[in-house]
């Protein structure tokens, strides 16, 4: 048996394990040690051919203030400083080019910048659902589209990274609500 192909194969196998394991490690760290923040959002139901059905999250805050002196352009990486309001929901209070010394923050990509404001691309945009539950989520959104009800994204944040932990409605996991509707 030739040595070189085996060495290359070994490196390939290691890389094939390392890529997903590094993702798992990073996200487990955020889930275990990150601060829980809540965001108001909407979530229609598209489909990914490789990863199945998911809810496309649209946090209700789509732009954030840019402080004077901070020069932001579209497509730049910025840090969104998070502030939790009296209602328990987090909002982006300001954007900066460097991570703040304290408090919770997220790494975001800036969109169109205008009038001291910038549109922001949130670092999470999908919540995967079982294919039996996804159509029920569609029905739920159709029924509640005119009501003031919005779902809450529960996000863990650590050192600028964010992991979407769950979606909830009035404190109940959205997935459980859908399961109850399917039964």
């Amino acid at each position, binding site marked *: *048996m*030739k040595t070189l*192909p*085996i060495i*290359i*194969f070994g*490196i*390939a*196998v290691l*890389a*094939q*394990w390392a*890529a*997903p394991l590094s*993702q*798992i490690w990073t*996200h487990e760290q955020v889930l275990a040690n990150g601060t829980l923040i809540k965001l108001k959002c909407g979530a229609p139901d598209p489909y*990914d*051919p*490789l*990863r*199945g*059905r*998911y809810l496309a999250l649209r946090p209700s805050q789509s732009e954030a203030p840019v402080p004077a002196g901070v020069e932001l352009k579209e*497509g730049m990486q910025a840090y969104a400083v998070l502030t939790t309001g009296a209602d328990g929901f987090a909002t982006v209070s300001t954007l900066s080019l460097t991570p703040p010394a304290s408090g919770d923050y997220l790494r975001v990509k800036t969109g169109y910048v205008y009038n001291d404001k910038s549109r922001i691309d949130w*670092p*999470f*945009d*999908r*919540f*995967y*659902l*079982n*294919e039996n*539950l996804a159509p029920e989520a569609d029905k739920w959104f159709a029924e509640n589209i005119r009501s003031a009800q919005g779902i809450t994204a529960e996000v863990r944040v650590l050192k600028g990274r964010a*992991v*979407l932990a769950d979606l909830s409605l009035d404190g109940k996991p959205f*997935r459980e609500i859908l399961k109850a509707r399917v039964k």
Partner: protein
Amino acid sequence: MNTSHQRWLLEQLPQWEREGLLTADAARTLRERNAVDESQPGLAQIVMGALGALLIGTGLIAVIGYNWDDFSRPVRLLFAFLPLLLTQLFSFRVLQRGAASSAWVRETAALLQTLATGACIALVSQIYNLGGEWPDFLFGWFMLSLPLVWVLRSHAVAIFYLIAIAIWSVNQVGHGRPWFDSPLLYPLLLLGLLPYWPGWKNQAALSISVRWAMTISAIFGFCSVAVFVSARGGDSYGYDDQSFLWLWTLTAAAFVLFPLNRNGIEEPTRRKPQVVLGSLWLLGYGVAATFHDVSEDILSGALHALRLPWCCGLLTVLVVFVLLAAARRRWAVLAIASVALLPLLSFPFAQHKDGYDGTLLSWLATLHLAVIGITLIVLEFAGKKGAPRLGALLLSVLIIARMADSHFSLLAKGVAFIGVGVAFLVFNILMSRLLKQKQATLV
């Protein structure tokens, strides 16, 4: 002669020996000359192996897509890594057995491992609700699969890789992207297949399907680079289409002149997709350049393109390829490829105070294509390898193009078109008779 022809010939030899058509010595010589390399997978084997692996792999992805959210995260992660581990062990076993493993088993193992890798990354991103763009996912997937092409020499994974890098490159055409996240990466990605390339440490010739996949991938990849580098500066978000059209033409010339070894040169043209597709583009471009207005656009596009570093790189590569082709006496491809360089010849004489006059380029293109057409016909009648029908077709298209661009009356144009049509049909009949006479002489 390709493998299927060789197999057919080897099957006929015993019967021809029995019938006395061949002596035993002649049959042995033919067997030795046309020995089929059984380590190369047959088409049916590859298709069946690849189909099986594809079905299993897509089934796996569909099972993942169902989203087993009743199970805990660790159990679902086990679902992701178990198929990967099993396919890796299978591939290792195949690698260990070396030449004892048949070709289709090697193909199946490599494809299964590729699909299991994609499924694993997909499942992890599903479990952690990761967003991200699909091109990033595709990039990770094909990079992790590339070593399997090298070690298992899998044609199916090579084709997957070629398609994936082309899709990725086309998708990365966008303003303001850094070079390492743009189509400029494509040439490096294509180089990634180098150990698998023909001629690399005496590897066997590539199958026709891989050649076509490689050529089509390269067309999309290099054309997306040309578009990317032709981005207009400032606040404009457009691309200079006249520039990238000339860059595409230089790319086509490089394809046609791509260096080949002696065996490659002697193969029939239909087994060289880079020559077929490159020539088609160049001849079409040449005919377009015969139109006065188009030639002015070509000149202004070429002038803009010449300021781009990518264009300088392409021209350097072309010079090297031209020298190599001349050394191998590949005059036909050199003649066709030279169409791309006509704008350079026209520049010194075409400039005037308001811009460029396309008259010279238009006439140069007409003359050049006419010479190519006539040469292709004359070569055949001079007893050398020509392409008389292609030559006649080129001349006909050229006459039609010139007539369409002229200020003659409709009556004159109509008569000319009828004349060309009749001449083309008569030529076709003459060529058919000539071919029959040749065959009769051979019998």
